[in-house]
């Protein structure tokens, strides 16, 4: 069950958490070791610049997918406008550093604030819409904000915005990892709180939630604001990491689609689903990005995979292994046990 129970059986769960913790520790610590030590430990890839880039990108998408999960997975409002929060965060940090000569640290902290404020303002009218109306409206906001920024001279207009280069692979890897950890931790805390149960109730049946006493508007806007803050923070880190931002690289609707795919593929509404989805999907994309025709086929493959997943395991892969879905392994196991008993 999604709500007050833990999804996996305790033994399976403990094992998964332990394995995850070890893998995470390896990833987190590996970059700190010197190149030689890493080579000897058999972890040469993580000290390579290219792989640093990929690891940082993966962490970024873990943050974005987890943040999307708060509004899309928990509250059930499929936002296509989260990319606006990312772009706003990026441009906030970018403008403060580049135009106003702020130091990176305070400029980074401003990013989530601006995105959250923006979410609070647009959340009130937008979150009255439901289903595809909400999806389309948020999509419009995402595109509109990108266009506005693209036409603002002080923000570099169509040329984009350049930030002074800060060369530290390690710093940006850890900042993205920290943002991702924050997003995952936030989801974990929310899912155990009254607030989280209120969001789930809204997702499952909004009228029923309202008449049992859930302040639906406040809850939805809060979820939107939290998602925006986390997404904006990732945007701020990205701006300085990439040291160049424009409409194409921080307001791309395809990135918004990607975070949705990751969350849905891994398991929307769960803590670890979006993490799994982001890691697997981003690594696949990065690996296949190089080859010409391979890239095309990989795109088609991802599309097919997504369709199959949405149809057969709508609650995501996490559910497939432990859950209630009629097509899950857990269901199969239970059915076999019941029929043989």
């Amino acid at each position, binding site marked *: *069950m999604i*709500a007050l129970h833990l999804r996996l059986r305790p033994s399976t769960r403990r094992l998964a958490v332990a394995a995850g913790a070890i893998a995470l520790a390896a990833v987190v610590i590996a970059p700190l070791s010197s190149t030689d030590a890493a080579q000897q430990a058999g972890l040469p890839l993580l000290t390579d610049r290219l792989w640093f880039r990929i690891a940082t990108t993966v962490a970024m998408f873990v943050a974005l997918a987890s943040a999307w999960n708060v509004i899309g997975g928990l509250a059930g409002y499929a936002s296509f406008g989260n990319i606006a929060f990312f772009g706003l965060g990026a441009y906030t940090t970018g403008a403060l550093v580049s135009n106003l000569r702020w130091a990176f640290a305070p400029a980074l902290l401003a990013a989530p604030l601006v995105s959250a404020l923006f979410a609070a303002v647009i959340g009130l009218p937008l979150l009255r819409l439901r289903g595809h109306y909400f999806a389309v409206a948020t999509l419009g906001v995402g595109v509109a904000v990108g266009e506005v920024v693209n036409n603002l001279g002080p923000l570099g207009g169509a040329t984009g915005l350049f930030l002074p280069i800060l060369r530290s692979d390690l710093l940006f890897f850890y900042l993205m990892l920290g943002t991702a950890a924050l997003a995952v931790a936030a989801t974990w805390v929310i899912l155990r709180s009254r607030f989280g*149960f209120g969001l*789930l109730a809204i997702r499952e049946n909004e009228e029923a939630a309202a*008449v*049992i*006493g859930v302040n639906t508007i406040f809850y939805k806007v809060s979820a939107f604001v939290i998602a925006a803050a986390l997404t904006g923070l990732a945007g701020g880190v990205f701006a300085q990491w990439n040291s160049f931002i424009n409409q194409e690289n921080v307001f791309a609707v395809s990135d918004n689609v990607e975070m949705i795919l990751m969350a849905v593929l891994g398991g929307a509404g769960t803590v670890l689903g979006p993490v799994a989805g982001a890691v697997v999907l981003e690594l696949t994309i990065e690996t296949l990005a190089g080859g010409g025709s391979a890239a095309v086929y990989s795109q088609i493959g991802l599309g097919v995979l997504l369709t199959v997943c949405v149809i057969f395991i709508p609650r995501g892969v996490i559910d497939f292994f432990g859950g209630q879905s009629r097509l899950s392994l857990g269901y199969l196991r239970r059915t076999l046990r019941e029929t043989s008993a």
Partner: protein
Amino acid sequence: MESAGGILPWSEWGHNSVSLLAVNDLGKRFGGVQALQGVSFTVQDGDVLGIIGPNGAGKTTLLNCVSGLFRPDRGDIRWQDRSIVGQAPYRIARLGIGRTFQIVRPFPSMTVRENTAMGALFGQPAGRLQPAEALRQADAVLDLVGLADKRSHPVLRLTVPDRKRLEVARALAMRPRLLLLDEVMAGLNQVEVEQALEMVRQVRASGVAIVLIEHVMKVIVGVCNRALVLNLGRPLLEGPPSEVLRDRRVIEAYLGERYARGGDA
């Protein structure tokens, strides 16, 4: 008046007291359909008010207005003498008004117990429970409505009567002072109706006032102390159940409907 209510038990201030719920001249229109017109009634502590009337009479619309899902076009709804028209549904819920839905609205991916706990978690006027405590309270409510042995079932595996019981359980877990029940006994067999009646009596005995929409006459006579008949959105008459059900106009309203739907049988 208000301060006196805090000191005296309700029975001692009798009929001059402030009503728990007072609906006055309520009107609601949907396009060309006048769903409610000139509907007035009150509910006192200890009341079980039955509302009957053929399909389309406006019974569900009335509940939707009281619980804040619809805003009435005219008239007033007062809770302990304060108007609640235009208030958000969650505020009305926390005043102590719980309701069920005729077309059930469970939280589909949660278990029976979790569904019920949601009512306790959010609906109680007294304040904020933690999830663990809400689950504990859900168990007590599930005993009362007869769902105790199905508490860990996913709701999608429940039969229709059980889903109706769950609606009642979730509303009861809110610890309401007024419970609005919309056809929760439709589709139950004789034995199940008896069980449901017993449940309603227990709820009433625990000090909860009830508004009960029902077609089964046995239910109206069995637990209601007053009945209100609606027809085409208007109040037809109000009075003690046995008298109301004997009235020619009421019989006609129902028979008329049955003739009109003759093809169904």
